[in-house]
C-alpha cells in the first residue's frame, strides 16, 4: 500500500485516495475544431510509461483535494507530490 504525501494533509495510506490517471492532459479548449483522431487521442490515449510517471490523485477520504504525484511505475516509489497547478519534473537528459 502506497504512502502518499498529500500536499494539504501529509502522508496517508493509499486507501484514503483515488487515482485519477495521467496528469497534465489539458482538455482541448476548442474541441469542435479537432479532428476525430485528435479528439480520440485526448479521450482515450494515455502513455504507458515505464519509469517516472506524473499522475493525478484525489484525497477522497481526507481533504478531497486533487493534486499530482510523481510515481515510479516499476518500483512504485513516490518522489514528489505537488499541486494541480504545478509543473512536472523535467526528464533527466539521457546519456
Amino acid at each position, binding site marked *: *500500500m*502506497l*504512502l502518499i504525501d498529500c500536499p494539504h494533509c501529509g502522508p496517508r*495510506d*493509499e486507501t484514503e485516495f483515488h487515482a*485519477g490517471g495521467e496528469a497534465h492532459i*489539458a*482538455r*482541448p479548449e476548442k*474541441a*469542435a475544431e*479537432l479532428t*476525430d483522431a485528435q*479528439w*480520440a487521442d485526448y*479521450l482515450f490515449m494515455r502513455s504507458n510509461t515505464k519509469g517516472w510517471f506524473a499522475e*493525478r490523485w*484525489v484525497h*477522497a477520504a481526507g481533504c*478531497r*483535494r*486533487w493534486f499530482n504525484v510523481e510515481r515510479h511505475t516499476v*518500483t*512504485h*516509489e*513516490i518522489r514528489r507530490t505537488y499541486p*494541480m*497547478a504545478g509543473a512536472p519534473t523535467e526528464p533527466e537528459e539521457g546519456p
Partner: protein
Amino acid sequence: MTATRPANLRAPPVRARGGDWVDDTRPIAVSFDGRAYTGLAGDTLASALLANGVRVVGRSLKYHRPRGILSAGFEEPNALVQLGKGAHSEPNALATRVEIYDGMTATSVNRWPSLSHDVFAAFGLLARFMPAGFYYKTFLGSRVLWDRLYEPFLRRMAGFGRAPVGADPENYDQRHLQCDVLVVGGGVAGLASARAACASGARVVLIEDNPELAAGLAASPAKEWIDVAIGVVKQDATVLTRTTVFGAYDAGYFAALQRASDHLPQEARAGVRQRLWLIRAKQVVLATGAIERPLVFPNNDRPGVYLAGAARAYLDRFGVLVGRNVVAFTNNDETYATVIALKKAGAAIAAIVDVRANLTGGAVALAKHEGIRVLEGYVVVDVRGRSAVRGVTIAALDGGRREKIACDALLMSGGWSPAVHLFSQQGGKLIYDPGMAAFVPDRRPADPWCAGALCGETGVDAAITGGWRAGSSAATALGKPAPRGLTAELPDEPKGDAPLAFWRVPVAPSAERKCFIDFQNDSTLADVSLAVREGFTHPEHVKRYTLTGFGTDQGKTGNINALGNIAERTGGDLARLAPTTFRPPFLPVTFGALAGREKGALLDPVRVTALHDWHVAAGAAFENVGQWKRPWYYPKDGETLDQAVTRECLAVRNNVGILDASTLGKIEIVGADAAAFLNRVYTNAWSKLGVGRSRYGLMCREDGMLFDDGTTTRLAPDRFLMTTTTGNAAAVLDWLEEWLQTEWPDLKVYCTSVTDHWSTIALAGPRAREVLQCLAPGTALDAENFPFMSYQEVVVAGVAARVFRISFTGELSFEINVPWHDARHVWEAAITAGAAFGITPYGTEAMHVLRAEKGYPIIGQDTDGTVTPLDLGMAWAVSTKKDFLGKRSLARPDTARPDRKQFVGLLTSDPSRVIPEGAQIVSESNIADVRLPQSSPVPMEGHVTSSYFSAVLGRSIALALVRDGFRRTGETVYAVADGHAIAARIGPTVFYDPDGTRRDG
C-alpha cells in the same frame, strides 16, 4: 482411550536437555482420524503424532501415495489436516504448526474413504499414464464426459479439506501499527537486529511465527547472550509471537496474522481468535531464515523420510526422536550436527550418505570421531517400505558399489533455500549464489535489510553478528545513533566443507516418476523432464504444466529442485533462471481475518432518512438503494407486492400520494460562475434560467455517454440546487469537484452536499395542491402563481420550506424540502391533512411504475454507460450552441450513427404479459424452442430495461433499448425470456398522458 506410546520415543535424556517447548507434566488428549492420542502441552499436532508412532498422515494428490510428516514448520507439504467441526472447522491446517489443546479433533484431508483403505491408491499403479499435462491432454475431448464424469471425480480426488459450512462464529480483529524498524523473524538474527535497533532508540516491532523467540536454541553455546537479548527486546520492543508476516507491500507496508487464541481449546477462547496486523515501517529487517530442501531420488516421499533439520527440531523442541535407527542423506555439513544430536539422544545411526567426496572439514571429522559410518560420494537410490521406511539402497555416485541398509527413518538435506518470499514480494531482486547453491537477496539501497540464514549467515555467531549489523543499519538510516558495540563472547565455529549443488540422483528414466519434486502436487522428476522435452523450459511454464509450486505450500520445498532440474535438463545455467513470482500471502489466511469486524451490520454503513421510524411503524417493506434503506411498498392487510403497488399507483393517479424522496442527491452550487459551470457540465443551457425556476438536465462523461440526470433550480442569481440520482449523489459531487479543481480552477464556484441537510417530501396526484394548501393556507398555489418547474420558499406546517413544483410521476406534484429534523413533523401534518383526500404513502416500486408510465428513464437502469442523450430521444435537452462535457464525442462516427440502440416503448401483444427486465430482443419469431441452440446465430436487437404492469392502463408496459429503434415504430419484435419469445410492438416511451396536461395543471 489412549493409544500405547511406542517405548523410548520420548527419551528422558533428551527431555532433560532443556529448551523444550513441551511440559511433560501436562498430558493433552487429542483425536486424529477418530483415534485418541496423548501428547504434551506445547506439542504440535505433528510432534504429538510422531511421539505416538503415527507415520501416515495423508494421501498424495494425484497418486494417493501414503504420506508422512516431512518438516517441522510452515513449509510442510503433506501433513494437512481438517481441524474442528461444523462452522468452527478449519481446512488445510498444517499439523506441523497446530499447537494441540485438550479435546482437539483433527482429520486427515486427502483420503477416501479412510487413510488406510484408500480407493484412489490404485492411481499409484497408473502413475505412468498420468504424466504432466494429463489434465490438459485427457479432458480436452468431450464436454459431456467432463461434466458427468471427470469433473465430479476430480473434485473428489482433489481433496485438501472442506470449507466449513455455516457462518464463521469466531471473532477476528484488525489493528494498525507504525514503527521505526520492523524486524520479521525472531530467530537469533532477528533478535540481534531488534536488540541493536532498540539500543539506538528506535521504535521496534519484532514478529515471530513460532510461540517463542529464538526457537530451539536452548542448547546453543550462545544461550546466555540469547536469554539476555530476549529479556531486553521484550521490554523495549513490541513483540508479536505466533504471528506470521504474510504480505510485504509498497512503502514499508506489511500484513501479519496473529494466531491469538488458536492454541486454546474452543471454550477457552475469549475474544479474538486471530488478529490481522497492518504495519507501516520506516525501515525493515528481514530475518526470515531458510527452508531446507529435499533431495530428489526414488521414493523420497515415503513416510519416515524427513528433512534433516526437522528431525533436529522434533528432538530439541519436543524431545521426539523420529527414528531409532537412522540413515542421513545430505549434501551439506549441517546434517552432521543433527545426526550427532540424534545419536546422543539415543538413536542408532546406520550411516551418513553424503553426495560429496573427499571431505576434510570439522563436521565430518567429528562424526567419524563419534564412530558414525560416513559414505562419501554416495547417494540413496531407493527407499523400501510403503507406509513406513524399512530401509534404503545406496550406491556410489561413480556407478560402483550398491548396498542395502536397514533403517526406520531417513533424514535428507539438499541444502537450504533462503526464505526470500517477503523480500521478493516487495520487489527485491534475487541472485544465485553458487557457494550456497541457492537464490539469495540481491539487496539494493531501498530494499529491506537482511540478516541471518536469509543471506547465508548460518551458525549462531554469524547470525548474531549479521543481525546486529542489520538492526544497527536500519536504525542509523533513520538518523538514530549507532548502538554501542556487540559485546557477546562468541565461540568460533569450526571450518567446514561447502555444500554441493545436487538436484537429483541420477536414475534410469523409468525411475524418475518416483522421484518427487513437489510433494503436495505429486510432481515428479519425470514431469519436469517431460515438460522440458515438450518445450516448456521457462520456470513459469514448467510450473503451470507440472503444477509444481501450486497448492497451499506454494512450493516452499519443491520449487528450487524444479529449477535445478530445469537447468540441468535444458543445459542452461541455473543462475540465469528466475524463480517463479512470489506473491502474498506467504501462508494461507482465513477470510475471517481479512474481514475482521467488517461483517454483518458493520459490513457497510446503513443510511436511513429522518422518516425511517415512521415507515417502519407503517409496516413498510424496504429496499436497499446504495447504502440507503428506502420504503419499497407499504403492504396493507396482507397485500402482496403487486397488490400494494397497484393500490399505491392508483392512489397517485386518482387522488394523492406521498413519497419520502429524501435520499435524492442534493448539491448546492454557489458562486459568481455557478451558471457558467452548469453550462459546462450539463448538456443543455443554464445561463438564462430565471431565479425561482427549475430545469431538467443531463450530464455526460467526456465520451458522450450519459452519467446522471436531475432537476436543478436557481435559488438566487449565484446559487443553484442540483438534484442527482439517489445512488449517484457522491459520484456526481466527485465529478463536479474534479472538473472544478483540475480543469477550471479559475471558476468561482463551490459545491456542497446538502443531501442529508434537506428532507424531501413529495406530494403527487390530482389532489396534491389541496393537501399542500391545508399546510400552507396563505400561499397561492395555482398554476399561474406557482407553475410547473418553479420554486418558492413557503411555510409548510409552520416550517420554513423550499417547495419545488417538479414531477417524477407525471401528476401535479410538489416536492417539499424541509430541514432534516423537521421532516417527521411536516410528514405527519401532511398525512393528517391529506386523510380527507385519500393520501397514500407510496414506495419506490410504485414510483418506478409511475415514472415508467411517463417514459422517464432512470440513469443506470435504462442506460448502461453506452447510451447518449440522443439515444434516449432527448435531443431537446442537448444544446447545439455551447460546449459541454461530452459534446465533441456526440459527433464521433460511432456515436453519431443513426442506427444505434435507441430508447423505445414496447407493448406486448398479450396485455397481461409482463416481460422480465433484461430480456433480449430479437426480430425473428420462428424460433421453435429458444432453449435449444439455433442453427444460425440470431442477431440481438437490444434488451428490455424496465417492465411493469400498469394499473392505470390495465396492461403491461416496457421500456427498451432497440437497435435503430426510432425508425422501427410499429414493428413487432420478440423479447426472449424463460424459454419463450414474447411478441411486442415498438412505440413511444410515454404511455400515459402524453401531452402532460395532468402534470402542468
